[in-house]
């Protein structure tokens, strides 16, 4: 079952003093996210990620097209009771304490009053803020606010969670914790849709990704598929810092790092290269096919149509 269905969703703003100049923020977008997926929505800054999320949350209205979440319209309150949303760089009522804020959001989400206090305690624990529930949010750091933001998004046990740049403002430890949390959410059967421009996060977490640039969907697919393409090139790594001359003659690109050498060359020359290493009595550590990274795919999709970058077309 599709958790999110986006059909021709489009957003054009009228800009300029007389509001007569159209500015397209999102070209017709068609996208389906399956139930239980972690779906990454990737794109550089200003690509249209936040616009899409705002359209899905009913914060702005589409110029054309429609979207359904859990089979319901985006403005249906029954649907909104079953989703969670973390906006980009969230700002909360800073006169409230973290507990008060979460309690307020619990009230608005219709969380059972008898369970609300327990749920607030649990979610504060889960995002790593168990001891600051009674502190006013105006005293929180950016990273702590981000954690509160994640807490409010999952407080009411939603089926679909939307995160807009969830790693923003977090230190490396915090990022790791959020990644773990997203995997936990997936194991709990929830669908996670998150936007980011940090590709390593997407590569580590996502089942599928979509790439958007200048308001236009440039590509969508399973991370495993996008990163597994072999290009007829292999990477050899061996111990030492000597590079046999015969290897260079085979067209290998060699990089010496400490006491290891990495060489990338054509798959057709693989056997000849191994023989050369044997002759020089160098110890081979690994031989792996070169795979496209998500970054390669991302960069390639960001190029204007008709241009290619790197080996992959």
């Amino acid at each position, binding site marked *: 079952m599709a958790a999110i269905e986006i059909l021709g969703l489009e957003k054009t*703003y009228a800009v300029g003093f007389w509001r007569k100049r159209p500015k397209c923020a999102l070209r017709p977008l068609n996208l389906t996210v399956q139930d239980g997926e972690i779906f990454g929505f990737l794109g550089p800054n200003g690509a249209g990620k936040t616009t899409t999320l*705002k359209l899905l*949350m*009913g*914060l*702005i*209205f589409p110029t054309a097209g429609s979207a359904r979440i859990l089979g319901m319209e985006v403005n249906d*309150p*029954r649907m*909104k*009771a079953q*989703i969670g*949303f973390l*906006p980009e760089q*969230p*700002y*909360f*009522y800073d*006169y*409230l304490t973290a507990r008060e804020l979460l309690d*307020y*959001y619990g*009230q*608005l*989400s*219709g969380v059972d009053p008898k369970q609300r206090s327990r749920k607030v305690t649990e979610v504060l624990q889960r995002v790593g803020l168990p001891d600051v529930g009674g502190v006013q949010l105006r005293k929180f750091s950016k990273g702590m606010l981000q954690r509160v*933001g994640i807490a*409010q998004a999952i407080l009411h046990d939603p089926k679909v969670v*939307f995160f807009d740049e969830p790693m923003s403002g977090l230190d490396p430890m915090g990022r790791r914790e959020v990644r773990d949390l997203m995997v936990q959410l997936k194991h709990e059967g929830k669908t996670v849709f998150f936007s980011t421009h940090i590709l390593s996060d997407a590569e580590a977490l996502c089942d599928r990704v979509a790439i958007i640039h200048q308001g236009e969907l440039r590509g969508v697919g399973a991370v495993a598929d996008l990163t597994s393409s072999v290009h007829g090139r292999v990477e050899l790594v061996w111990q030492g810092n000597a590079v046999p001359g015969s290897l260079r003659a085979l067209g290998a690109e060699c990089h010496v790092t400490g006491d290891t050498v990495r060489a990338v060359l054509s798959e057709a020359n693989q056997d000849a290269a191994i023989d050369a290493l044997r002759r020089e009595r160098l110890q081979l550590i690994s031989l792996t096919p070169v795979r496209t990274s998500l970054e390669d795919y991302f960069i390639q999709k960001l190029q204007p149509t008709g241009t290619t970058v790197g080996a992959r077309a």
Partner: protein
Amino acid sequence: MSSRIVHIASNTFREAVRDRVLYNLIVFALLMSGASVLVGQISIDIERLVVINLGLTAVSLFGMVIAIFIGIGLVSKEIEKRTLYTVLSRPVRRWEFIVGKFFGLAGTLAVNTFFMAIGVFVALLYVSRHFQKQDGWVLVALYFIILQFLIITALALFFSSFSSPLLSAVFAFSLFVIGSFAEDLRGFAGITHGVTRWLATGAAYLVPNFSALNVISSVAHSQPVSGQLILYNSAYALVYAAMALCGAVLVFERRNLK
């Protein structure tokens, strides 16, 4: 009333309290204390009149300033700071948010007025040594002041739903000033002709009639307020505030949040 409206109203009230809005009561208390002592020394037999006039005018002005300056930020501030995102992404309808905000500020003003009213009556007791039967009309004047607050809060919310805080403040304050002379405007419309008459009449009936809701002077002179006026003013204020609130909802329902 939807429970979500109650929660939004409670949070709006809590925000006003924690942002120290009710600190104006200290200034009011100082004003009333100073006025009572001063009036007792410089006026003969008109202490009651001066205290009622001064006290109720201060209640009205303090409340209007709060209603306008908090009212204009009720929606725009939430959009500016994006606190609205995490509210409207929940099962909260946009009209519930507007109505909740309205009741939150109206509740804040009612509590504020209640404490100010206590101040007025204490000052009255200080200068008169005892309460008189006609002091009960002060309560009617206070009720009318609260009705004015409802109208100006709804108008501030209306302007806030589509305009910047500065422009909203200008619009709301202008309507307060013009509305305070609404009876004069109606009188002026009656003596003009042609297009001017139409325009003046239209403007006179469009602006809120705050002058009809101002009975401070007559109450200070111990003149009774008719039941008909109480009924008429109640209906007028509630209908006007409801219409302004509907306008705010209509605009906000269609607004793209930046």
